[in-house]
């Protein structure tokens, strides 16, 4: 018996996202991050597996370099709940959002260079490594990151 759903992030359950991120990511996010997440609307979602929060995604719209791009800040799932299609559901939600919007040049994100599982995952969805940023992370090793990008046809 399995059910996977997406749910909104509200001021009432934001701490669940925090708990989640604390164990899923080696980087810790500051209070401002969580304050801003509350204003993201559909760009931030929690994933529920059998009614329990096990994953989440947070994106923001990036307007630098004269482009309109979507940047995935975090996308993750608790270890025991991987390989159940939760990441896929979260990423599909993001990609659908972009498609519906129709005005994004691309969607991109950073991945630690040794995180092969993640890189494979994104490649399956048509992402490509476009850049390597050295010393991207401050407190974790390796500190280098790949930029993974998926471009949308029209500009």
């Amino acid at each position: 018996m399995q059910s996977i759903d997406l749910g909104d992030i509200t001021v009432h359950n934001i701490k669940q996202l925090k708990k989640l991120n604390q164990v899923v990511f080696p980087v810790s996010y500051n209070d401002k991050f969580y304050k801003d997440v509350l204003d993201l609307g559909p760009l931030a979602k929690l994933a529920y597996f059998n009614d329990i929060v096990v994953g989440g995604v947070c994106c923001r719209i990036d307007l630098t370099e004269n482009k309109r791009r979507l940047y995935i800040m975090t996308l993750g799932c608790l270890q025991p709940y991987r390989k159940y299609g939760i990441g896929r559901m979260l990423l599909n939600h993001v990609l659908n959002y972009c498609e519906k919007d129709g005005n994004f040049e691309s969607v991109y994100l950073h991945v630690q260079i040794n995180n092969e599982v993640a890189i494979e995952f994104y490649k399956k969805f048509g992402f490509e490594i476009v850049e390597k940023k050295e010393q991207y992370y401050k407190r974790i090793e390796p500190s280098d990151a790949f930029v993974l990008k998926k471009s949308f046809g029209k500009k």
Partner: protein
Amino acid sequence: MPSSNPLPTQEANLFKKILRCYEQKQYRKALQHVKEILKKFPDHGETLSMKGLILNYTNKKAEAFECAQKGLKNDVRSHVCWHVYGLLQRADRKYDEAIKCYRNALRWDPENLQILRDLSLLQIQIRDLEGYRDTRYQLLQLRPTQRVSWIGYAMSYHLLNDYDIANHILEEFCKTQPKTVDFEMSELLLYQNMVYQEAGLYERSLKHLEENKKYILDKLRLEEKRAFAFIKLKKLSEAAKIYEDLIERNPDNVTYFKKLEECLNLENDEERLEFYKKHAEKYPRSDVPRKMPLVFLNNMSEFKLRLDAYLKRAFTKGIPPLFKELKCLYTNENKLKAIEEKVLSFEKNLESIQKYSGDCEQKESPTTLLWVYYYLAQHFDYLKQTNKALDYINKAIEYTPTLVELYMVKGKIYKHAGDLYEAVRWLDEAQSLDTADRFINYKCSKYMLRANMVKEAEEIASKFTRESSHPADYLKEMQCMWYETESANAYKRMGKFGEALKKCHQVERHFQEIIEDQFDFHSYCMRKMTLCSYVEMLRLEDKIKSHPFFFRAAKTAIEVYLRLHDRPMSEVENELNVNTENLTPSELKKLKNKQKKQQLKAQQEKEKQEQLEQKKKELSKQKNKEDVDVEQPTEEELLPEKLERPENALEECNRFLKPLEEFASQHLETHYLGFEVYYRKNRPLMMIKALKKMNSLERTVKQTAKFHYCLSKFLLKYSQIKETLNESVRAVVENELKNLNPSSESVEKMNEKFFKENSNTYESLIEYAKVLYDSNPSQNQAKALDLLTNVDAKNEKLSISYPVALEALTLVAEAEYFGKCDAKVVESLRSKLKSFYPIANIFHTTEEQANQLLSCMQVLSINSSQVSELTDKMEILMNVLKILVFFLKLVKFSSNYPIVLNTWPFTNATNKAWDILLKTDDPLKSVESGCSECEELRCDGTVGYGGSPDENGETTLDALIMDGRTHDAGSVAGLRRIKNVISVARAVMEHTKHTLLVGDLATQFAIDMGFQQQDLHYFDSLEKYIIWLNNSCQPNFRLNVYPDPEKFCGPYKPIKNLNFLSNKEKRLNKYVSKKLHDTIGMIAINSYGDISVGTSTNGASHKIPGGAYVDNDVGAACGTGDGDTLMKFLPSYQVVESMRRGMTPSEATNDAIQRIIKKKPHFMGALIAADKYGNHGASCHGLEYFEYSYRTNQSRDAEIGRVKCI
């Protein structure tokens, strides 16, 4: 209207206007008209009465009564004046008076419908059923066409249990009614049927239901009533058919299943099992037919089979309350074992193969294992295996940290083990994860109240109260009684008896309000025809005070009153106000002045507040002048100060005790409380009555013990007062005693017998000890106390539940049941009980409890930024302390900082650091200069230059410094040719991003920073070096090299392919002795509680010295001794973390040393620690004693602390 004093037309019209205005609640306008009439006819009775009525609605009660009385006096023959006066009495809840007034009014106007209706409402309200029947009869006569008249009349007979007449009236009435399909008809028919069934007329009831089937809209009720009647008529097969249908409607209704079982007359377990199996198949989603067999099955193999299926289904589905569902099975030892076995095997298999067992086909989803962990945590919590329970819940949290329920269970486990603060912490965590969940919010605030955190509880609860009003007011308005009762208990524990009573009285008032609120329903339900519900409501209200909410509040109130009777408040207060005996006269004077000032301040503040409130009231009054609707009389305000000083505490109990005796007489506790009250009142017959009641009830072990206690107490008392009683009383008592104490043994004998039969439960032991003491206080005190203290945690036969343990401590320490006893006795009882409940807060020392509370406060999610709140917390803390100090009379607790602390008795360094701390209030500077001083003075020869030379004969220095404010640290190791090593460490902290610089690079850095290079040789270090060389290079710290380092000098080469385990012992530095090898470690806390720590050494080998760690929120620690061993254990960090979890500095250092010697039994060294309040402690191993020095405000010179080593 007949009035003895008619008005002229113009005024008569005005009077009519008054009535209209009054009905439309235009009180101001009405009063204007009143004024106009009274101008001409100042003595007009009815007008005066009306004025009174209106005034009452505008909250001027006294004036209203005056007017109404005056009006009545001027016109005693007016029904208006009587009616008004009656209404005023009714509003004042003097129902008897009101009824009299109404009757008088009816004398002058016997057919006044309004007055008759008002009268009937009052009569049913006070359950004057005969009066009600008569009034309803009059109303029926006057208005025979109205439906309500008939039904009201019938109901009056029904309530008098006169079913025949009631049925007759209803049948007659129904004949006149055309049958319609609507709600009101349906309700009427159901009501009629209710009366049939209550009269026992089941045939008629069934026939009635058959005939009116299509008019009864509530089909469920119809079927239930039919089934009920069939069972009564023993027509079981018909009833069974209906229950089958009802189960189909709702397959989760346990009662239907039980009734059906009853109807089918199932003989044995096999038949029952078959029955439930069939239904389980038919209703795949229903839980009931699956669970029921688990309850009745005694065949264990069958049970296990059913259990397996049940559990798998539940875990896969993820049912959070599963444990609660199965708890009822735990009374059966075998079933408990079977469940444990099963779930543990699930755990094992799910962890390894993600299946329940090897032969399962399907893999389970990851949540299944989570629910298994969750279940096991609760399972072991139930079995009081706290550690195992915590292991499982932590496993679950690690597995899925986002599931809120896990944190609640974690809190619950801590609560059951008595660590209330830790429990609060986890409930708060749960609450913060889902702030929209009211249930968790309620749980959290309840846990806070259990830990006496009243303010915090209010703050958490306020997340769900209306913002415009104060949370406490809102909760009171909402009749939130669990909150008030829990608050009362918290206040009681804190010794704030007035506040506790206030809350209890509030609960009592809520029940009064609930009874008052019936008033609205008497006319409403009749009008709306909800007759069955109305009758049920009346019956519920009749025994509303049997509700557990009332019981709990009443129990607390009575206990508080008993306590206030035994030790009235004024006396208690003096005791609380610090132990004045130990103070010098000048100190006493100071203290008194301080108290006076405080009192003055409190008074001023109170006055201010009162003024403010007055203003507020006036404001709101002005605002609402037009539309105030104050029907209820204003109640007397509950003032804690007044409540806790009752004139006669025992009389005050009545308000709570009487309802308990009436409505909760099935609880033994009721009569126990009653006994305690009557005992103090010297009422032998009432005591006997209570004893008789207790004797007639079934008793648990604890209750048997309580009964034994009461009986013994009565016998003791009776032997004293026997002579003073009159003969008839004595005869009654003697007669009753024949039953209560048939063998008429002496109290002593009875007590011994009781002890022999019940010595294996602690609750019995307590009561035995109490009786023992009471029968001869002076002789038996020690024996009684000894009995309670001399219990062994290893004795498996003796079980002590947590509440009972708590009761014992309270009895001895707080209630001083056994008289004043030595602090040592209390202390030993406390520590003995601690061995049963090691993490229960209450069995820790005062100081530890305060620390536990504070560290709990720090992690709470609610913001404690406001100063006022902080003081509130301090107030709570102080209250906890006050009470504890009061009963433990042990520890003086206060913040001890500023303080400087130093390993070893290097007092010069301590004094230097103290001077700097006083001058600069900078703990970092203080530590730096203290260590520098030691470097300069070459304390003990092991700090500073020219100390312990290394193998090359050169002295190298190590130091570390850490600032608690920023949590930054700097250190150097193997520093050569620079003297001020601690300052270099500080430079590393402040001028690099590194934390550690080593060797020549460190020296280079120091030179860059402007430190002077110099020769660190000193005459004795050279000398030492030569001696060392001549002694075949002994002592030697090398290991696993050749030539053998224990015999020869180097150069050495490593030995390869070693069995390292065999070298375990060798790795210890056995040459370490006190003289050889010291480090200075220093802790400084400034006046704001900021902490720094530093350490400096020349070491015995190249290493970072002993180690030091500080966390500004907790405290600091540092070590000295065999640094190589210390480094492997991070003991300083361990000590600080242990203090964070509530250990005292002494306990924390002790614990850390224990951890070391468990692995390295020959370790030599010591740890010192200070918490952020300036409490300090030390522990050591490998020496006999360890001395350290410290200095605080209390002394003019550094003092030496001395601890005996482990």
